[in-house]
C-alpha cells in the first residue's frame, strides 16, 4: 500500500477525477483536511472508511453539490468548485449517481424514472425514449418491472432502477453511494456483478463509496481508505490486506479495538463509579 503523502500535487494525466489538497468543514469541524486522490479512467475505485468519515460528502463534493473550503476537485479537466451553475449542470449530464436510498421519484413508475433524465435533456421521440429505457432496464434485469411504482419495489430492485437511471444518459462517470448497505446476499451479488459489468461494457468510470470491505474490494481496481479527514491508505485490493497500517488492519479485519478505540473517551472507570451521583 502507498501512503497518502506519496501522491504528487499535480493531477494525474490518466485520471478522470483528481482531488488535491481538498479541505471541507461543517461548522468548526473539518470533515476533510487535505485529501488527495485520483480516479483512473475506466476503473472501478472504492472509497472505504468507517461511518461518519464523509464518504458520501466526498461524492457530493465531486458532484458539485458541496463546495470545499480549499483545494481542487477536477473532473474531466474542469475544477468543479469554480464552475458556474450552467457549466456544472453540463458536467453533471456526463455523470450518474446512485443514491443510498435510490432517490427514485415516487410519483413516477419505474419506466418514467429511467426516462426522466432522457426526457429532460434530449429531444428524442417517445418511441426512441421507450427503446432506450427498455435497454437500460434490460441491462439491470428489470425490464419486466417497468410498470411498477417505487413503493412496489424491494430495496435491491430500487437500487437497480436507480442504477439504470444513473446510466440513462450514457455518462462517463457513475458515483455509487453505499450500494450494498442493507442488501440480502442475492441482491448484493446482483449489484456487485452489475457495477463491474456495466463499468466494463459501457466503458464507464465508477466510484463506489462503501464500508462493505469484501464486496467493494471484490469489484474494485483501486481502493482508497479514508479516516479522520484524510486518505490513510490506498492501493490495489490484492495488496490491501498486506498494509502495515494498524488502522487499515483494524478496519479491514473488523477488529473492535485498536487505533479506533472501543471506548468513547471518558474519565477513569473506577472514579466514575465511585462518584455516586450523576454529574
Amino acid at each position: 500500500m502507498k501512503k497518502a503523502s506519496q501522491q504528487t500535487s499535480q493531477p494525474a494525466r490518466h485520471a478522470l477525477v483528481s482531488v488535491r489538497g481538498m479541505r471541507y468543514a461543517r461548522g468548526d469541524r473539518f470533515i476533510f483536511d487535505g485529501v488527495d486522490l485520483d480516479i483512473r479512467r475506466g476503473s472501478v475505485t472504492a472509497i472505504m472508511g468507517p461511518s461518519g468519515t464523509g464518504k458520501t460528502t466526498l461524492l457530493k463534493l465531486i458532484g458539485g453539490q458541496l463546495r470545499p473550503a480549499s483545494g481542487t476537485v477536477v473532473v474531466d479537466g474542469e475544477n468543479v468548485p469554480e464552475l458556474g451553475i450552467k457549466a456544472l449542470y453540463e458536467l453533471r449530464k456526463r455523470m450518474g449517481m446512485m443514491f443510498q436510498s435510490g432517490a427514485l421519484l415516487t410519483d413516477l413508475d419505474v419506466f418514467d424514472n429511467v426516462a426522466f433524465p432522457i426526457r429532460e435533456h434530449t429531444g428524442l421521440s417517445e418511441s426512441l425514449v421507450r427503446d432506450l429505457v427498455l435497454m437500460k432496464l434490460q441491462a439491470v434485469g428489470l425490464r419486466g418491472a417497468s410498470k411498477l411504482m417505487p413503493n412496489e419495489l424491494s430495496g435491491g430492485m430500487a437500487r437497480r432502477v436507480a442504477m439504470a437511471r444513473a446510466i440513462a444518459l450514457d455518462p462517463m462517470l457513475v458515483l455509487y453511494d453505499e450500494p450494498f448497505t442493507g442488501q440480502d446476499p442475492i441482491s448484493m451479488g446482483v449489484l456487485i456483478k452489475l457495477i463491474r459489468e456495466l463499468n466494463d461494457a459501457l466503458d464507464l468510470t465508477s466510484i463506489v463509496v462503501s464500508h462493505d470491505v469484501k464486496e467493494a474490494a471484490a469489484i474494485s481496481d483501486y481502493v482508497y481508505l479514508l479516516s479522520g479527514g484524510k486518505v490513510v491508505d490506498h492501493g490495489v485490493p490484492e495488496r490491501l490486506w498486506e498494509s502495515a497500517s494498524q488502522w487499515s488492519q483494524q478496519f479491514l479485519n473488523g477488529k473492535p479495538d485498536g487505533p479506533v478505540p472501543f471506548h468513547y473517551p471518558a474519565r477513569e472507570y473506577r472514579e466514575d463509579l465511585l462518584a455516586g451521583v450523576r454529574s
Partner: protein
Amino acid sequence: MILDPFQRLGRTSLDFFERLGRGHLFLMHTLAGIPGLLLRPRLVIAQLYSVGVLTLLIILVSGVFVGMVLGLQGYNTLVDFGAEESLGVVVALSLVRELGPVVAALLFAGRAGSALTAEIGLMKATEQLSGMEMMAVDPMKRVVAPRFLAGFLSMPLLAAIFSAVGVYGGYFVGVGLLGVDDGAFWSQMQSKVDLHEDIFNGVIKSVVFGFVAAWIAVFEGYDAVPTSEGVSRATTRTVVHTALAILGLDFVLTALMFGG
C-alpha cells in the same frame, strides 16, 4: 446567567432575519423559474389539479355553510330594523370583501399549503431533490416553480368560487327558508355591490393571499429539516405562518382599500 435571556433573544432575532432573507432569495429563484414554465405547461396543469381542483370540495362545502350562516345571522339582525330585504347586500359584501378571500386562503393553507410543504419536504428527505440536481435538473424550476405558480393561480379562483357559492347559501336560507323577497335580494345586491370597489378589491386580496400562501408553502417544504420530525414541523409552520400572514395582510389591505 443574567445575559442568557438577552442572548436567546439575540439568537432568535438573528435566526428570524436570516430565515427571512433566505425566504426572499428563495422567492427570487422561484420567480426566475416561472418563465421557463411557458414551454412546459403540463407541469403547471398537473399541479393545478392537485393544488386547485382537489381543494375545490372543501371550498364549495365551506362556502355554502358560511353563506348560510351569514344569511341566518344577517336576517336576524336586519329584521329588527325592517331591512331584511337588504340581506343580499350584507351577504354579498361580507363575502366578496372579506370572508371569500380570507376564509378561502385559510382553507387553502390547511388543505393545499400543508400538502405542498409535506410533498416537497419528503422529496428532500428522500433525496429526490438531490437526485434531480445530480441529473442536472434544477428542482427549483422542475418542482418548486410549478407548484408555486399553481398555488398562486388557484387561490383567486377558489376565493371567487367560495364567494359565489356563499351567496347561494345565503340565498337558500334568506329567500328559501326565511321568506325574504327574491327580487329584492338580487336587485339590492346588484345596485349596492360595486364592481371596482368591492369585487375588484376582493380579487386583489385573494391574489395577494395566494402569492403569500404559495410562497410560504413551497419555502417551508424546501427549507424543511430532512427528517420525519422536520417535515412535520415544517407542515405545521406552513399552516400557522400562512394564517397569521393572511390575517395581518387582510387588515393592512382593508385599511388601504376601505380605510377612508
